[in-house]
């Protein structure tokens, strides 16, 4: 029996348990006419949970354990003696035999695999029967035991509520597990990488060309400094040169000058910019902006301008970031006490003088925090640079030259046809770890700045 059929059976048993326990509990009420702490449906849910949960847990464990058990049993078969020693070839033969046994194979089977297939089918059905039997027995036994506890004075509701609380706690644990998963998986692969390439060489090396890696000295072509510079140049310099003026000035105009009705229209329109998928921006950058930038560069005399320039990617990224800067600036300007603004206006300052001399200095920490968050967003942005920036790592200050970023290199390294254990693929995890740490630090600093600033005016 497949796991799916079995799950349906167990759930069906649970449904039956729910109905019978509910009927029984409803009977108490009719017989005595008293009111109890638990409703009939609570009793029903209690018995149903006892029927389903242990069996489901067993099935989960069994689904992970049984393939190994099946393989062990197959290996005791006489035909298995001809198998090659443990390794890739052996695993391939075994999995082919499994496919044949399951009736999923295509083409001419290997003779040995065909010989092993009956043993596989045999072992599979053997353990399938054991697993199904135990699961159904478990469901039945636990359900029956729970059913015996259904009595008028039994507090089924508090038991159910305890299960629900456990469920809630488990749900919130997933966030911690995810964070842990990110940290552990990045660290684990990065440590393996740093065993092959010294960490100093990776962080401060200036030569990046993962296409040709010398097996004796992989670190020589895996110096990531040009990537860090490219990321900083595109995400924190060019993009911010676009995003900060436009974002800040839009926020000022919308909060201080615009008619409320105009603001109600314009603010959502600008926020749509943040909702456009990044792959669309990437396509826009590659198709429309990059040729324009190149033509412009050629027209001002930079004849060697790259068609995958840092400027094109940075400009489009800046446009994407405008709404982030704008909404953060909006919040911080709104948080400045009205008394300061009114005081300045009462002294005869014009509105722009009030904004420039009073509101902006007061809101500066919040704005800076917002800009830091925007930078962290920009350097983690992937699709725009994958589609519009080049793969050539150069240490350059020229916006018309090609530059590459950490995220672009992660994608390039992991979508090639390389083995998983090569320094090339592991380098992607080391880059990922660097990116994770940097964005985390930026976020922490930004949030602390914003929080301090909010407290200052509360």
């Amino acid at each position, binding site marked *: 029996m497949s796991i799916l059929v079995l799950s349906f059976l167990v759930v069906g048993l649970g449904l039956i348990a729910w109905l019978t326990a509910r009927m029984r509990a409803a009977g108490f009420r009719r017989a005595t006419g008293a009111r109890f702490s638990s409703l009939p449906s609570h009793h029903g849910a209690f018995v149903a949970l006892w029927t389903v949960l242990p069996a489901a847990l067993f099935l989960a464990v069994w689904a992970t354990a049984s393939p190994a058990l099946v393989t062990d049993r197959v290996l005791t078969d006489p035909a298995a003696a001809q198998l090659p020693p443990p390794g890739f070839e052996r695993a391939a033969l075994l999995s082919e035999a499994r496919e044949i046994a399951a009736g999923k194979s295509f083409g001419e089977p290997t003779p040995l695999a065909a010989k092993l297939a009956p043993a596989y089918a045999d072992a599979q059905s053997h353990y399938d029967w054991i697993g199904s039997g135990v699961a159904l027995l478990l469901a039945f036994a636990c359900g029956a035991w729970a059913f015996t506890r259904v009595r008028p004075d039994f507090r089924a509701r508090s038991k159910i509520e305890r299960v629900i609380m456990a469920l809630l706690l488990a749900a919130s644990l997933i*966030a911690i597990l995810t964070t842990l998963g990110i940290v552990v998986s990045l660290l684990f692969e990065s440590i393996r990488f740093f065993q092959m390439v010294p960490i100093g060489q990776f962080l401060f090396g200036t030569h990046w060309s993962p296409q040709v890696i010398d097996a004796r000295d992989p670190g020589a072509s895996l110096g990531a400094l040009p990537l860090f510079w490219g990321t900083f140049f595109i995400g924190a310099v060019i993009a911010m040169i676009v995003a900060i003026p436009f974002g800040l000035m839009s926020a000022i105009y919308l909060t201080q000058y615009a008619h409320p009705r105009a603001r109600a229209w314009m603010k959502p329109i600008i926020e749509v910019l943040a909702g456009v998928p990044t792959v669309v921006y990437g396509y826009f950058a590659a198709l429309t902006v990059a040729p324009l930038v190149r033509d412009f560069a050629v027209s001002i005399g930079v004849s060697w301008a790259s068609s995958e320039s840092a400027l094109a990617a940075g400009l489009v990224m800046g446009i994407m970031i405008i709404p982030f800067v704008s909404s953060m600036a909006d919040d911080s300007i709104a948080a400045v006490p009205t008394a300061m603004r009114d005081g300045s206006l009462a002294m005869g300052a014009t509105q*722009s003088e009030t904004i420039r001399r009073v509101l902006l200095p007061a809101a500066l920490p919040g704005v800076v925090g917002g800009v830091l968050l925007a930078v962290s967003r920009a350097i983690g942005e*992937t699709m725009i640079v994958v589609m519009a920036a080049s793969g050539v790592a150069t240490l350059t200050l020229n916006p018309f030259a090609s530059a590459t970023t950490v995220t672009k290199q992660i994608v390039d390294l992991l*979508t090639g046809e390389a083995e998983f254990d090569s320094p090339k693929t592991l380098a992607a995890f080391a880059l990922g770890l660097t990116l994770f740490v940097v964005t985390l630090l930026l976020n922490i600093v930004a949030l602390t700045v914003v929080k301090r600033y909010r407290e200052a005016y509360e």
Partner: protein
Amino acid sequence: MSDGVAPIVPGTAAPVTVPARMPTDWQTASRQTRIRRRYAAEARFRLMGLFAVVMSAGFLAILLFTMISNGIGGFAQTRIALPIDFPRAGLTLDQARLKGPGADLALAGAGLPEATQAAAIVAYGPDGDKLLSDGAWLRVRDQVKANPALLRGRATLWVPAADTIDIAAKHDGAPADEAIVAKLKAMGALSTGFNAFFLTASDSTDPTMAGIWGALKGSIFTMVVTLLIAFPVGVLSALYLEEYATRNRFTDLIEVSINNLAAVPSIIFGLLGLAVFLNTFHLPRSAALVGGLTLALMTMPVIVIASRNAIKAVPPSIRDAALGVGASPIQVVFHHVLPLALPGILTGTIIGMARALGETAPLLMIGMRAFISAPPDRLSDPATVLPVQIFLWSDQVNRGFVEKTSAAIIVLLVFLLAMNGVAIYLRNKFETRW
């Protein structure tokens, strides 16, 4: 009077003479120029603000205009009139098999592809078959299936043109193709119609046959997995953190993780999916299942944060009243707080799902960038999603894919717009101000 300043009582001391400050004379020329300068600065500043707003909206307009003007052609198909003489086309066909599920196979086996090519050569000369799309015979097949009577005589069918002809007809193609198009137009053998392939077919190497249905189905599968995991987990953990958790180091840790996860770059989730789901649990590569799991981890913090805000907005009096009539803490939350917070939670969920729908980078990491020419049937089948399809098409050299890419972007944007529209509608309809 602690600071020792004596009150001035009239008559007891001589009045102190303060040198009087002359009132500013605003009419002098220097004052007037100064005021003018300040007002000019004010106007300039205001104009700069307006310029920033208009430019930001302008960027959006340019973006949308580029996509729509490039992509609108992707929904259109150039067709060529193809006269076929069916009785003489050499089809070996059993009429009875045309009814029922075997019809497609029967027609393909009967030599319809070859017959279509032969008819094109008869009609348009020795290179006539190159004028037609590789999928032209599919259209012939569908028309024959719909109307088997066609097989008994001569008929003129409209079939899709090859991509070179398509480009030449819509934009400006190679001179040779332009000449052919002009000739066909003069013969009245060229027309354009709605490109049904685009919405019903999957990826193909031939742009005239490429469609988004496979990618769309992959996106739907992925989103279903994401929703089924991220929504319950997100809402339950929000309920726990907001309603039950006591503030201690442990719940602080949960809170910090959730806030940080919301700010982690999406590509990091891709690396997590690669390392955990593919390399540790050995789940199938490029499957909608793995894509959905990865995006669920990414979407969950968004849902938690939105749900917490919605739960926070439910006034405490509701909880007190429910507790007062004897409800247990679980009943208070599940019977009263959750239903009242649900509109806000749903709005946040839809916005999070819209973000996940447009996400590309993490899915590239888990291998969803393969060429997949059949829509997935199960969650574990290799699949691709709409944004990844856009990315793959944008890399194609063939010029015919430019408009397909933009057309796919239009479809994606329409979906996102619809989702955000629903979110705004929900918020306006059900939002309660307490």
